[in-house]
């Protein structure tokens, strides 16, 4: 057992864990910055909603569906030219973030759209009756009312991103997934595989617990 644990390069694992956290944090930040407004737009442009515009909705919806229907591994490769343009490299942490964001943004946007749909229509009606603008209704009522559902959407997205970061190892993205493939799979070092799996599992657990705590904290029902 000692021999087994000694065979593992813990410095390498520490570095890979740090890379995974960087990829996760960076991609989650940009995914929220893009996915939240996109989700709000999807909600508002839908039929019967505040800015009802069926054509705009159909267009946004199509883009979201196309991006979501591509398997992430394919998206990683297809996006290489775009990644080079945005990040200057397609390798490492920086190179992994653009495809992660493109992959997760439509996913989060759909969850945000659903979260906003879950808000009682009466809230919108009350806002309109008070003379609120669309902007005021979104900022002062819809987003605060949907906050528990939005936190849980961000949690699910973060966990999905953990899975994606592991996949980005395939094209040299770095991080725990990369380590698992290079050592655990290609060099038959099963112990490295086990350690990375345990670390990813821990990360997912922690994210879920943090998410649940945030949801509970802002639920007043």
């Amino acid at each position, binding site marked *: 057992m000692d021999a087994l644990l000694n065979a593992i390069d813990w410095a390498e694992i520490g570095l890979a864990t740090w890379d995974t956290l960087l990829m996760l944090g960076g991609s989650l930040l940009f995914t929220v910055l893009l996915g939240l407004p996109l989700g709000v737009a999807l909600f508002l442009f839908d039929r019967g909603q505040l800015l009802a515009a069926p054509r705009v909705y159909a267009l946004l919806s199509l883009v979201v569906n196309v991006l979501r229907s591509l398997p992430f591994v394919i998206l990683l490769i297809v996006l290489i030219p775009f990644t080079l343009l945005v990040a200057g490299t397609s390798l490492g942490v920086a190179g992994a973030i653009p495809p992660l964001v493109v992959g997760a943004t439509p996913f989060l946007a759909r969850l945000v759209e659903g979260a906003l749909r879950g808000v009682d229509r009466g809230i919108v*009606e*009350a806002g309109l009756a*008070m*003379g609120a603008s669309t902007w005021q209704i979104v900022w002062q*009522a819809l987003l605060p*009312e949907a*906050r528990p559902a939005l936190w849980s959407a961000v949690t699910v997205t973060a966990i999905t991103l953990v899975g994606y970061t592991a996949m980005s190892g395939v094209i040299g993205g770095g991080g725990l997934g990369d380590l698992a493939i290079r050592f655990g799979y290609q060099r038959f070092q099963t112990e490295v595989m086990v350690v990375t799996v345990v670390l990813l599992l821990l990360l997912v657990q922690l994210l879920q617990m943090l998410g649940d705590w945030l949801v509970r904290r802002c639920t*007043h029902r």
Partner: protein
Amino acid sequence: MGRRCARPVIELERAHKTYAVGRQRIAALRGVDLRVEAGEVFGIIGASGAGKSTLLRLINLLERPDAGAVRVAGQDLLALDDAGLRAARQRIGMIFQHFNLLSSKTVAENVAWPLKIAGGRTAADIAQRVEALLARVGLADQSHKYPAQLSGGQKQRVGIARALATGPRVLLCDEATSALDPETTRAILTLLAELNRELGLTIVLITHEMEVVRRVCDRVAVIDGGVIVEQGPVADVFLHPQHAVTRRFVQEAEQVDEGQRLDDFAHVPGHVLQLTFRGERTYDPLLGEVARRTGLDFGILSGRIDRIKDEPYGQLTISVAGGDLAAARALLEARGVRVEVLR
């Protein structure tokens, strides 16, 4: 109350509204005229689907009519641009059946919301106004609670405080007591009546319960199938309903079935009369006096003595036998009692 001012604060003219449901077009309103005067409590009663909810939403243009005119405080709402309409809506309060409070905000934050929307007030200003409003609706000590911690009646009080925050002259009530138990309903209606008196607030309420109309309204309109079938002062409509729909609502409130009642009295000898008393005279010992002076024997078959808003009324169904019926009738009518011979 105040019918001193003849200028209507709310005017709808020939309002039409049609909805598309799938391929069908359903007419919700078919040419409705409505005039609500400043300071009155106006009730609109109708069954579900009669169009009353649409009618109420025309007044602040939550629903736009397909044709017709909407004027509030002399302003043509249909002619306003977006900003103008938002400003006009800030002068029209509205409360809802399911309260529509923000569950993520405290009571105080909920009441402050319309003030934030309207803008132009400092935080201290808003806090002070919110405190005064909550005190007025009897929730002074609840300001830091969340709506989920309140009872239904308390939630509606928050709704009322919120609706009055910007100092509107008009309050629209959308089935405001339909989700409440009878006791809470009475308390909320009492509060609305007080606000009407104290602030001169014009109130338009829609309901499917005649009891609500009887308690607080000055005038009532009965809506059925997208048209107003009857309207007038509540006492007139309530005591002498003309339209079949109105009669059904009144009977529901009185918990009697008119047809059934006459059947029940089939074996009663002599004539059956319905007497309607109104005002303070309701409490006069009139029947005994009439019986003594005309030699009439009477039996009370059914009756109710109650109030319509602030006015006492009595409505008795009696059987009479012997004596001078014509003289008795003349005597009663001379005292302002309305006499109808049912049989």
